[in-house]
C-alpha cells in the first residue's frame, strides 16, 4: 500500500530522514477512496413541489380552494339531491317559500308567508293560518273594511303539507334548490370552457407574436387593436340577437376579446426571454422553434398564466350574470347563476327569498376564486422562495 515512492514538489524523492521517519513508516491517505460531495441529507425540492408547499401554507388559499371544490361538487351532485328536478313545472305550487326539515321547527324557513287579506276572505285560509299578526281598518270608495295580516303555511294552503322545497319554488313551480345547482353547473362549465379556449388561443397567438416578432407581430397587433376597440356591449347584443342565446353564442362573445389579455402577457414574456443566452444555447444545439418555446421560454410565464386564468373564471360567471339580467344569457329552460339572480331580482319585492341563494353562491365563487388567485400568485412567485 505504501510501497510507492513519494516525491517532493521539486521532484526529489522524499528522503528517509524527513521528520526522522523512514519511507516505510509513511503512508498515503485517501489514495483509493473516491472523493465526492456529500449527498444532501434533505430531500431536493422541485419548483412544482415548492409551489404546492407555499400554496398549502396560506390558510386563506386552502379554504378558498376547498370552497371552490365544494361548490363544484354541488354543481355535479346538487341537482340530484333534491326529490324535485330542475325542469318539472308545477303551476299549482308556484312561488312557495323555502322549507327545510329540521330547521322549520326553529320558526325560520318553515314555508310560511305573511299575507295581507280582507277579513271576509279569511275562510279561504282555514286551517293554514299559523299566526295572526293583527288587523287594521282601511277606508276606500267602497266603504270601510278590515284588513288582516296573517302568517300562512303556504305548503298546507296548497295541499302539499308533506313536501319540502328547500329553497322554495319559482313562478313556474320549479324547485329552486335543483335549479340553483344546475345553474351553478351551467355557469361553471361555461366559465371553464371560455377560459380554456381563451388560454389556448392566447398562448398560441402570444407565442407567435412574441417569438417571431416583425411584421407577423405588427399585423396581429393591429387586428387585436380593432377587435378590442369595438364597444363590447352593442357587439354582444348584436351577436346574441344574430346567433340566438345559448351556451355556444355566449362562449363566442366571451372568447372574442377574452384571449387578448393572455396573448399580451405571453407576448411580453416571449419578448423578454427570447434573446437570453440560454435560449440561444438551446437553439445552437439544434432545438426546434416549438421546443425552444415550450421548454425554455413558456415555463417563465406559467405562473402568471395560471393566476390570470383563476381570476378569469369568476369574471365570466359575473359577466354572464349581467347578460342574463338583460335577457341575453343562457337559453330559457336552462338555469344559470345569472338567470337565477335576474329571476330573483324581478320577483324581489314580492318573493325576496328567491335572490338569496344564487347571490350567496356567486359571492362565494367570486371571493374564493379571487383569494385563491392571489394565493396562487404568491405561490408561483419564485422571489419569495424559501
Amino acid at each position, binding site marked *: 500500500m505504501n510501497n510507492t515512492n513519494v516525491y517532493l514538489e521539486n521532484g526529489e524523492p522524499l528522503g528517509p530522514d524527513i521528520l526522522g521517519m523512514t519511507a516505510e513508516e509513511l503512508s498515503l491517505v485517501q489514495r483509493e477512496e473516491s472523493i465526492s460531495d456529500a449527498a444532501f441529507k434533505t430531500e431536493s425540492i422541485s419548483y412544482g413541489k415548492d409551489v404546492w408547499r407555499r400554496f398549502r401554507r396560506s390558510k386563506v388559499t386552502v379554504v378558498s380552494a376547498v370552497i371552490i371544490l365544494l361548490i363544484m361538487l354541488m354543481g355535479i351532485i346538487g341537482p340530484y339531491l333534491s326529490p324535485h328536478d330542475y325542469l318539472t313545472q308545477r303551476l299549482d305550487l308556484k312561488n312557495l317559500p323555502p322549507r327545510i326539515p329540521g330547521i322549520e321547527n326553529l320558526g325560520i324557513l318553515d314555508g310560511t308567508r305573511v299575507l295581507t287579506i280582507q277579513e271576509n276572505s279569511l275562510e279561504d285560509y282555514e286551517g293554514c293560518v299559523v299566526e295572526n299578526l293583527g288587523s287594521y281598518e282601511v277606508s276606500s270608495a267602497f266603504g270601510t273594511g278590515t284588513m288582516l295580516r296573517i302568517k300562512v303555511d303556504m305548503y298546507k294552503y296548497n295541499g302539499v303539507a308533506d313536501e319540502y322545497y328547500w329553497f322554495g319554488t319559482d313562478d313556474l313551480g320549479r324547485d329552486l334548490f335543483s335549479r340553483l345547482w344546475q345553474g351553478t353547473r351551467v355557469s361553471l362549465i361555461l366559465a371553464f370552457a371560455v377560459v380554456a379556449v381563451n388560454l389556448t388561443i392566447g398562448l398560441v397567438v402570444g407565442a407567435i407574436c412574441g417569438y417571431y416578432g416583425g411584421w407577423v407581430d405588427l399585423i396581429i397587433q393591429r387586428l387585436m387593436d380593432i377587435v378590442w*376597440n369595438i364597444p363590447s356591449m352593442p357587439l354582444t347584443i348584436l351577436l346574441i340577437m*344574430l346567433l340566438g342565446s345559448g351556451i355556444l353564442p355566449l362562449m363566442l362573445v366571451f372568447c372574442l376579446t377574452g384571449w387578448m389579455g393572455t396573448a399580451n402577457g405571453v407576448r411580453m414574456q416571449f419578448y423578454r426571454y427570447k434573446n437570453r443566452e440560454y435560449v440561444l444555447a438551446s437553439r445552437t444545439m439544434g432545438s426546434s422553434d416549438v421546443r425552444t418555446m415550450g421548454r425554455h421560454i413558456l415555463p417563465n410565464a406559467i405562473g402568471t398564466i395560471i393566476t390570470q386564468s383563476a381570476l378569469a373564471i*369568476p369574471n365570466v360567471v359575473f359577466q354572464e350574470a349581467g347578460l342574463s*339580467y*338583460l335577457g341575453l344569457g343562457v337559453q330559457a329552460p336552462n338555469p344559470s347563476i345569472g338567470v337565477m339572480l335576474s329571476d330573483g331580482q324581478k320577483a324581489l319585492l314580492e318573493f325576496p327569498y328567491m335572490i338569496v341563494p344564487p347571490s350567496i353562491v*356567486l*359571492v362565494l365563487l367570486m*371571493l374564493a376564486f379571487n383569494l385563491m388567485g392571489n394565493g396562487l400568485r404568491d405561490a408561483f412567485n419564485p422571489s419569495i422562495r424559501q
Partner: protein
Amino acid sequence: MIKYIIQRIIAAFFTFLVIVVVVFFVIHSMPGDIIDLSSKIDPTVREVILDKYHLNDPLIVQFGYTMADYLHFDFGYSLKIRPGVPVLQVVLERLPITIQLNYFAALLILPVGLILGIIMAIKKDTVFDHISSSLVILLISVPSFVLAALMQYFLAYKLGWFPIILEAEESLTWSKFYSMLLPILALSFGSIASIARTLRAELAEVLTMDFMLLAKAKGLSFRQTIWRHALRNSCVPLASTFLYLFLGVLSSSLVIEQIFSVPGLSKTMLSAINGKDHWLTMGIVIFYVFIGLFMAILADLSYGIVDPRIRMGGKKDE
C-alpha cells in the same frame, strides 16, 4: 411627442373605419325586415319607403350611401324608436341624464375611494383594514344589479327613504336629484371598491420604500410624507381610472338604467337593436366607438404626464 400623438390618431382613425364597416354589416345581416308594418301598409307606400332608404339595393350599395351620408355628418333618422327624429338629436337628448348621473357618481367615488384606500394602507393589518378589505371584496363580488336591486328593496321599498325609480322630470330639480341618489350610489360602489383596493396595495408598497424613510428623516410631518411623496407615486396605476371617471361620463350602464328606469343612451340602444332601428343603432354604436378610441389615446398620454419616467413612443421591446 407630437409625432407619437399624430401616429396614435392616424392608427385610431383606421381602427374607427374598420369598426364602422364591421358594425354596419353585422347590423344589416340581422334577420328580419326593417319595415315590418307589412299588413297595414300599402305596398306602394312600402316601395316608396324602401326606395327612400335604398333598401332595395344590394347591401354594398347601401353601405356606400350610408358612408356618403356620414361624411356630411348626416346620421340619418330614427325609424321606429323615435320616428322621424334625426339620430344625432336622439343621442344628444339622451346624454344629459347620463352625464349628470356619472358626474355626481364621480364626485362621490373620487374622495371616498381615495380616503378609504389611504386609511386602509396606513392602518394596514389592523381591524379597520381587515373589515374594510372584506367589505371592498364583497362590493367587487356582488354584481351591480343585485346590489342595486337590494338597495331598491330595502332603502326605497321597505324604508321608503328614496323614490323607487328616477323621476321623469326633464330639468334637474331638487326632487329629481333626490331620486338620482340611489342610481348614483349603485354606480359608485364598484368603482369605490376597486380604487380603494388598488390604492391600498400600491400605497402599502410605496410606504416601505427608502425614499419614504428619507422624507421622514429630513423632518417632514407624516401628513406631508403621505401627500407629497407616497400618494403621488402610488397614483400612477390609477391615473387612467381617474381619467375614465371624468371622461367616461358619456358611457352609461345598461343595468342601472334598466333597474331605475333611467332614460339613458344604453337603454335606447337596446330598444333600437330590438326594434331593428338600424340607423339609430349605428349612430349610437359609432358614438361609443368614437368615445372609446378617444379615451384610449388620452389614457395613454396621461401615463406620461403622471409619471415622467414613462417615455412616450418608446419602443416596447425590451
